[in-house]
């Protein structure tokens, strides 16, 4: 086989490996940061004996999970019980496929777009998989045949279905501003004009709150509610099956952070001031056109990763700052505040774009 047949498959495989490796590789770091960060915010010490700064603690956790008994409740519906945690990890990983990590790199005169799936449905594809994130919660809670699990599943799915509307509407207002569903077009628009969050602050706020609810993170962790319903939909899951739900939460957080960065905070557009460094690097090493493009792409990936890291930090920060909502407060916020607000915002943005263009 010649290079032309191998190359498309090789570049696709490399991109998939990068994204999956990134999504799963961040999990131990986030587990460590969640524990140390929460301790830091609450004035505790946190795990600090395992390894340097407690950095080996996630590894110890994994070993603990592997050594636990792989227990299945007697009355559980075996097939659906095992299907739940699998689906939990699949949906956010699939949604990562349309997030662009950079514009393009040039290898041996061939262009490689730094995005797994280039499709014209673009960001809408993410909505499709955000809609599938409710199944693991329903399935896991129902198949365990436990009252608390079913309660958690019902609460969780009601929450996700409710907040999906305001999330979709605030996403729609951004699509009207950018005039495209293609994430590359969005990033280009934001690098020419301003960041989306500055153009549409209400939309950004509503989207940000809704995505917390979609990922089941505190203050929206009502599906787990450990102090009220013992653990919610994953109460009956132990060992690595619980760890899968746990990992899925962090992968969903990465997906959410990448989505917020792309839609509202310039995506892979380089951070302010980075252009000076890029110019200096290109001048220093005397790169040609291809080298310059590759350097730019490297800094674009770095920009997106630092934005993702910032939003991951915000996820942890908010979790350890705000208390959990009560269920009626949660529904009031979703249906009586965020839903009308996002609808009004959508109309306002539409009028604004119309008068700006005419």
């Amino acid at each position: 086989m010649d290079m032309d047949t191998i190359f498309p498959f090789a570049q696709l495989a490399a991109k998939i490996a990068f994204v999956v490796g990134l999504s799963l590789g961040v999990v131990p770091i986030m587990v460590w940061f969640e524990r140390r960060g929460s301790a830091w915010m609450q004035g505790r010490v946190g795990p600090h004996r395992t390894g340097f700064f407690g950095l080996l603690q996630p590894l110890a956790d994994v070993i603990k999970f592997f050594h636990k008994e792989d227990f299945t409740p007697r009355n559980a519906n075996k097939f659906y019980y095992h299907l739940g945690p699998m689906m939990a990890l699949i949906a956010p990983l699939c949604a990562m496929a349309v997030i662009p990590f950079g514009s393009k790199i040039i290898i041996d005169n061939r262009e490689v777009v730094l995005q797994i799936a280039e499709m014209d449905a673009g960001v809408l594809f993410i909505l499709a998989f955000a809609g599938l994130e409710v199944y693991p919660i329903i399935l896991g809670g129902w198949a365990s045949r436990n009252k608390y699990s079913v309660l958690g599943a019902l609460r969780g799915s009601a929450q996700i279905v409710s907040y999906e509307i305001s999330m979709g509407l605030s996403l729609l207002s951004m699509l009207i501003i950018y005039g495209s569903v293609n994430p590359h077009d969005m990033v280009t628009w934001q690098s020419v004009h301003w960041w989306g969050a500055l153009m549409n602050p209400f939309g950004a706020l509503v989207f940000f709150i809704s995505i917390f609810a979609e990922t089941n993170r505190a203050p929206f962790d009502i599906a787990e509610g450990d102090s009220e319903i013992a653990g919610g939909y994953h109460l009956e899951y132990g060992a690595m099956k619980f760890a899968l739900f746990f990992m899925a939460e962090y992968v969903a957080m990465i997906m959410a952070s990448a989505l917020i960065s792309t839609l509202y905070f310039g995506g892979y557009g380089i951070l302010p001031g980075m252009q000076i460094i890029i110019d200096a690097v290109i001048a220093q090493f005397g790169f040609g056109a291809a080298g310059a493009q590759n350097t730019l792409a490297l800094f674009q990936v770095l920009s997106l990763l630092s934005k993702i890291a910032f939003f991951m930090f915000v996820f942890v920060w908010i979790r350890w700052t705000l208390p959990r909502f009560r269920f009626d407060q949660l529904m009031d916020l979703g249906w009586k505040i965020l839903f009308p607000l996002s609808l009004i915002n959508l109309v306002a943005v539409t009028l604004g774009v119309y008068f700006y263009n005419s």
Partner: protein
Amino acid sequence: MSPVLIILAVLSALLAVTMLFAKSPITSALCLLGVLIMTAGMYGMIGEHLVATIQLVVYAGAIMVLFIFSIMLLNLNNEETDYKDRPLVFGAALALGALAFAGFGVAIWNHFQAGDVVVKGKFSPELIQTLGGNTKVLSHSLFTQFYVSFEVISLALLVAVVGAVVLAKRKFD
């Protein structure tokens, strides 16, 4: 045809048969979900990404969630044990189904025998590519040429929602 397409087709056919013959309602609902996801995969494989996405958003993400939600809320756990085999009804249904299937088969056979009699529209895959992709072309025709029908359909949906609320309210009052 690509092998992935054949795998998806076979899987969706298997899931559809399982959906028909499953005794527990939740298995039927989840098999239907599987069929919808496989169909979305097939749309994606032939390059119709927008249709695949809409299939996932509308059917798998919204309608099936409602189905499964209501099945679980109604707690149809006993349905499985209460299920009675009624061979006569089942046989009649099977015969009718086979008849309808044969009718479809004959119609499709006749269609392929008649050759290329399809009246083609003005859009071809190449034209859509030059106009900027499926999403753009579809949205444009939806909000210009088919604007009135789009609005009328949303009105019909609104009537359905209001009607459902009125019916449910009368029952609970």
